[in-house]
């Protein structure tokens, strides 16, 4: 009894739904709902978190991420230009840097900066600088690769037009290439901002006092103080307050610039 292709596809999809329903049923039957409710939805524990979770932790997470992203963007642009340079040593340096910071866990970068730098150099920056440097180092490696791809996606005809109008190479890069690359990379760059927001949860490794807590640290302290998981749930929700709108922004930009870029390429290709 051979099945047609359509029958096979239907049977396969039916099987998938079956597995999903089974998983939900098992979860509902075996999970201890009472305990889960007490642990995650404890209103008393929740009330102890406000307003600091918003006024301190959420704000700090945003500040750390913004500083780190700004530094990462600047550093990433320099690295991307180095990687595209005709000067060999620039390219090698950028490649080594990118491979290094992209290849090691962000956790190690934070530990190195939090403990290693004060040990090795006897200096200690304030927490905002250190956090910005750590996030910037981690972010710049990814951002550099995104920028490089964006710069290379600018049609060569645009560069030739600029050069034949008498613009120098630097002038062409600043006036024509970077603005156009920026439109292409805006969506992936937003994604990198989301990743960096989550990486900011590692800042606790730098050693924070209460005013410096970001969301993850704040949530864990709440867990210790209340013995309830509710603060963790709240911290998670606060991350979503930042990342979900960014995700929508990214998709919106993708739709908008995607169309523009297509038109641009059609025109210039």
């Amino acid at each position, binding site marked *: 009894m051979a099945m047609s292709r359509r029958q096979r596809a239907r049977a396969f999809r039916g099987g998938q739904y079956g597995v999903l329903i089974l998983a939900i049923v098992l979860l509902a039957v075996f999970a201890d709902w009472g305990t889960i409710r007490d642990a995650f939805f404890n209103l008393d524990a929740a009330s102890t978190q406000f307003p600091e979770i918003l006024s301190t932790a959420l704000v700090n997470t945003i500040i750390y991420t913004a500083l780190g992203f700004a530094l990462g963007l600047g550093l990433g642009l320099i690295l991307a230009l180095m990687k595209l340079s005709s000067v060999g040593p620039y390219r090698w340096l950028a490649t080594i840097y990118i491979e290094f910071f992209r290849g090691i866990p962000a956790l190690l970068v934070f530990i190195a900066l939090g403990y290693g730098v004060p040990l090795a150099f006897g200096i200690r920056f304030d927490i905002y600088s250190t956090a910005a440097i750590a996030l910037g180092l981690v972010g710049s490696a990814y951002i550099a690769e995104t920028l490089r791809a964006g710069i290379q996606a600018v049609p060569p005809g645009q560069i030739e*037009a*600029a*050069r034949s*109008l*008498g613009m120098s190479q630097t002038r062409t890069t600043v006036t024509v290439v970077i603005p156009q690359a920026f439109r292409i990379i805006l969506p992936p760059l937003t994604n990198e901002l989301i990743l960096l927001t989550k990486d900011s949860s590692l800042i606790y490794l730098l050693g924070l006092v209460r005013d410096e807590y970001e969301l993850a640290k704040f949530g864990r302290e709440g867990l210790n103080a209340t013995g309830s998981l509710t603060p963790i749930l709240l911290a998670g929700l606060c991350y979503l307050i930042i990342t979900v709108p960014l995700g929508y922004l990214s998709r919106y930009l993708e739709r908008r610039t995607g169309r523009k870029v297509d038109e641009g390429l059609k025109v210039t290709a």
Partner: protein
Amino acid sequence: MSDVIIEVSGLHKAFGKLEVLKGIDMSVRRGEVVCIIGPSGSGKSTLLRCVNLLEEPNSGAVRVNGFEMTDPDVDIDKARRTIGMVFQSFNLFGHLSVLDNLTIAQRKVLKRDPAEATAIARENLRRVGLEEKANSMPSQLSGGQQQRAAIARALSMQPAVMLFDEPTSALDPELVGDVLGVMRQLANEGMTMLVVTHEMQFAREVADKVLFMDGGVVVEEGPPAQVIGEPRHERTQTFLHRVLNPVHVID
């Protein structure tokens, strides 16, 4: 200043092993319109791009408007200001409005103040019949309008010579006339022009001199009536036969 605006001598250019230009000698005098015709792959674009050094020649000399383009110490950006270039694919800056496309190099390269740059840009938009498109984005224009805007952009630098690389090849047939009209008007105003084209009618009517290229050499050159009207070389005859009777391409 010499009367010869472009002088090319002994020009060789290879891409890797592929020899594309095998010793080109040619010149364009002030106010002259020179058209280059020839089959696909014969090196016409490469020759044009060697003139403003978008391609670096392997050997030979290129002199444009007093600049030794092939001299390693030449200020290439300064030289290029005097050489307008129009591309087959227009290459308007996609992130800038039409007006900004025309003013950006005036401001950043020639350091003109914005008011002067805008005035010159508007004047050139008027020349190509696009005054009302000043604030449009390039993507909102038809191909013919984009190409006329690209011509106006080059003209805004007030170049001594204009290079055109098949400016109408990417256009729908009904838009070709507008662009050729603008070029014809430029020629009438005395602009020095070097034009790679497949538009034989245009070459015949507007050119002072026609060059036929094939296989990386100039096979034949002379007034259009001779090169297009009564070609001497067999290769020129075959090419023209194909171009002028496209229906009989198969024979």
